[in-house]
């Protein structure tokens, strides 16, 4: 057993980074920019994988980087660097100025209106230093326990891809030439167990279970995670193909959230103003069944998609995207809001480089009242999807075709595992045929949906 120390996460003094960001903005303005914005990002990470009881990998590091976005009237460009020396900063700023000269004049480009800038002051519970509180040996032990619980669960589980434990913290600072200065820290830890089950004839199946949390204290126990992972893997043994058919399809929460993601792809400002979504122009119209309400909320305390301000420095908010089937709002940043003559919904997402995109906050489908068991019980022949393989949604046409695996439903029960099939349809119809929405909404990430049933899909197999 290796003796390990938890290496102290590397970090610079906060005030230095704030000053750094402000300095970059000042320098950019000094090159003649009409507006500028700087982002400094700093973070550290720890990760370990334990396989068959032994440490397989152990990784630990920290990093810092800086990005600047400049405006010269209606032209804009951006640069980023991991070199925070004086020379590095000077190069960062002069390159941005030079690049801006070759971009086009775009009347919609620019920082947000000054009056919109701001950040939430309430405690959002995004940062818990306890993610690094365990000594290294115990972090490794978490991963070992998550794997062991799966391996011990059933004699048919003799192999695994391991248990893994990850912890990280990040620190983000945004400064712009309109006087905005905002920063926040976030912490994150996760535990995953990936067992492999083998049947008598040698066929193997793999599944996983996981939990993630902002604080170590709230992380589910390794024993629970290992046990659920084992149950999910065992459930796949003996999976077979089925005949092509049109049947009701139930999606478990791990996969139903990806259907919800398609709504996000379809309502974000970039897709809308370019007409690259079939939802463009449909504000105020019915785009889904009455039972469908979709909300984006960047303010939920502790949420994975929460932040005090969006990627442009505007306080995040709660937006009802679809209400009882009616499309009530797109999700926008300043640029797309201007293009559409609307107001931003504070969904700007800014990495280090490039222009801000659009990202969800905590994005979810409002739950219904039936349990997943009740939903399944209402189906005589159908499919219960527990995993997707590949992508396959076209938001321009609505075409939907994805590889899938799960369980066949027969007489209201989960009957046998199914694999090597696809689920196909068209999103334009699918949103109107979400015939059941479960009560089991749980955030295992920033996007969440309960169990849902969709009718009218084609299951392709034999």
């Amino acid at each position: 057993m290796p003796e390990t120390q938890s290496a102290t996460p590397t970090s610079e003094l906060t005030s230095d980074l704030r000053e750094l960001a402000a300095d970059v903005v000042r320098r950019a303005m000094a090159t003649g920019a009409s507006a500028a914005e700087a982002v400094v990002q700093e973070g550290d990470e720890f990760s370990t994988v334990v396989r068959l009881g032994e440490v397989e990998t152990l990784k630990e590091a920290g990093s810092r980087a800086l990005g600047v976005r400049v405006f010269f009237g209606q032209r804009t460009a951006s640069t980023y660097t991991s070199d925070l020396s004086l020379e590095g900063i000077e190069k960062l700023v002069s390159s941005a100025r030079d690049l801006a000269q070759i971009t086009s004049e775009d009347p919609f480009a620019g920082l947000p209106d000054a009056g919109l800038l701001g950040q939430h002051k309430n405690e959002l519970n995004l940062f818990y230093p306890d993610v690094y509180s365990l000594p290294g040996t115990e972090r490794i032990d978490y991963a070992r326990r998550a794997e062991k619980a799966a391996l011990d669960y059933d004699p048919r589980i003799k192999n695994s891809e391991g248990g893994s434990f990850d912890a990280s913290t990040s620190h983000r600072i945004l400064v712009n030439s309109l006087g905005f200065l905002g920063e926040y820290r976030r912490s994150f830890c996760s535990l995953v167990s990936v067992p492999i089950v083998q049947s008598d004839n040698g066929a193997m199946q793999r599944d996983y279970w996981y939990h993630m949390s902002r604080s170590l204290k709230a992380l589910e126990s390794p024993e629970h995670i290992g046990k659920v992972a084992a149950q999910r893997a065992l459930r796949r043994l003996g999976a077979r193909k089925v005949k092509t058919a049109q049947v009701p399809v139930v999606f478990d929460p791990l996969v139903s959230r990806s259907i919800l993601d398609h709504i996000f792809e379809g309502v974000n400002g970039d897709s809308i103003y370019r007409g690259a979504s079939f939802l463009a122009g449909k504000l105020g119209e019915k785009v889904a069944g009455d039972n469908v309400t979709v909300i984006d909320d960047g303010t939920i305390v502790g949420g994975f998609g929460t932040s005090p301000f969006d990627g442009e420095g505007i306080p995040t908010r709660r937006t009802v995207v679809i209400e009882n089937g009616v499309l009530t709002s797109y999700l926008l940043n300043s640029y797309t809001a201007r293009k559409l003559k609307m107001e931003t919904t504070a969904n700007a997402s800014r990495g280090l480089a490039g222009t801000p995109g659009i990202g969800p906050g905590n994005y979810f489908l409002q739950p219904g009242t039936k349990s997943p068991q009740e939903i399944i019980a209402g189906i005589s022949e159908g499919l219960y999807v527990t995993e997707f393989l590949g992508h396959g949604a076209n938001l321009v046409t609505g075409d939907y075709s994805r590889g899938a695996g799960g369980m066949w439903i027969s007489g209201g029960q989960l009957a046998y595992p199914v694999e090597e099939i696809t689920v196909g349809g068209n999103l334009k119809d699918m949103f109107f045929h979400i015939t059941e929405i479960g009560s089991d909404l749980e955030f295992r990430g920033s996007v969440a949906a309960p169990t849902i049933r969709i009718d009218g899909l084609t299951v392709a197999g034999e």
Partner: protein
Amino acid sequence: MDNKFFFSHFGIQQRDLERYLAAALSAGGDYADLYFEYQTSTSLSMDESLVKSASQGISAGCGVRVLSGERTGYAYTDNLSPERMMHAAKTAALIASGPSKETVAAFQEKPARSLYPVALPSVDAEISSKVALLERADVAARRYDSRIKEVRVSYGDELRRILIVGSDGTLAEDSQPLARFNVGCIAKTETNSARGTSGGGGRVALEFFSDPISSPEHFASEAARQAILQLDAREAPAGEMEVVLGPGWPGVLLHEAIGHGLEADFNRKKTSAFAGLLGKRVASDKCTIVDNGTMPWRRGSLNFDDEGHPTQETVLIENGILKNYISDKLSSRLMGMPDTGNGRRESYEHIPMPRMTNTYMLAGQDNPDDIIRSVKRGMYAVNFGGGQVDITNGKFVFSASEAYLIEDGQITAPLRGATLIGNGPDVLTRVSMVGNDLRLDEGVGTCGKDGQSVPVGVGIPTIKVDRLTVGGTAKRDTGGYMQ
């Protein structure tokens, strides 16, 4: 030792490298390496005929790795000062326990290939020339057809300089250019919209895009053509049928069906559906498939892998028999097999593992027209989006973005996108015809594994798969092309 770049830029000298490696081995590891990386990149995009976005970046750092038995310790730093490098080395060293037992061998630079001797890397080329490429594509796409309403063009390039040193004496330096050009179009009518994309590039200079076969006009008209075609596409059938794949990018079939499953780490751990199948039949005898990192100028090629081992052409499957896995340093040592030079990593922040380079099937004897003619009712797919695989149960998918119905040996109706799904260890046993028209893709592939992306290439000649499941929505036996 002639590591000019990192010496002049960061003042790193041989004795520093020896010191860091010794620190990494100070707790008893078997092997340690340092991966220094300095990357500059540019990206530009045009939308609504405006250059809306231009960005450039620099990223530099070093990853320190220590191997101890089956264990890997890893730490990285973006600050190459001696203090931070020593801290990273000592952190990575913690994977081992015990007294130091290995010493650092003398560095020996092996003769290297030169697969991409670009005189002027595109990152250093005039930015106005790159903007000109965007403009040409925009004009060409819009001119293709009046129904083309939205055009998005993007160009990205990078130059990655690396220095790898290992405690076994490995010393490798490389300068890796990479460029990529993409066009996306949306076609619209009163009632309908559709999209098309096309792109290409490689480890090339900007002049690459002056050649007509890889010019902005070429990619623009391809993207526009696909979008227009899709306006009239009908529902794809659902269920099992004969599938003919066109040459080039449809080679993603191989990448998903067998490529990942043959990565040595999965086979060592016996988590891959191909574990234990060396020497067994996994494809028809018409199939010979290789992974080849030595092709000049290709996106998926490397002079040596990210562990400093020379790349090579590895025969994966020969006349249908599984011959080799693709490996890295750790896998090859633990499995007692030669290192195939496939140890790759996304960046200095990542641990290397076996990854593909350019993966393709060799040309066969059949005439592509005969292949189409041999199909009574099936699908002919020539363009794809991406794919994915579960390497444990072997199930894989890839999504067709341009496909046609074949009826009585004729290509008839264009079909809307559909995902094809199959089982890796047996799908290739049903390859009954292999065309003589091998093509590689145009240089757009990115492979993801365990959260790490690397550039790759794929290729295939026209082939017929006797049975594959098509994830459409139309009932399979609905016949004919209806107006």
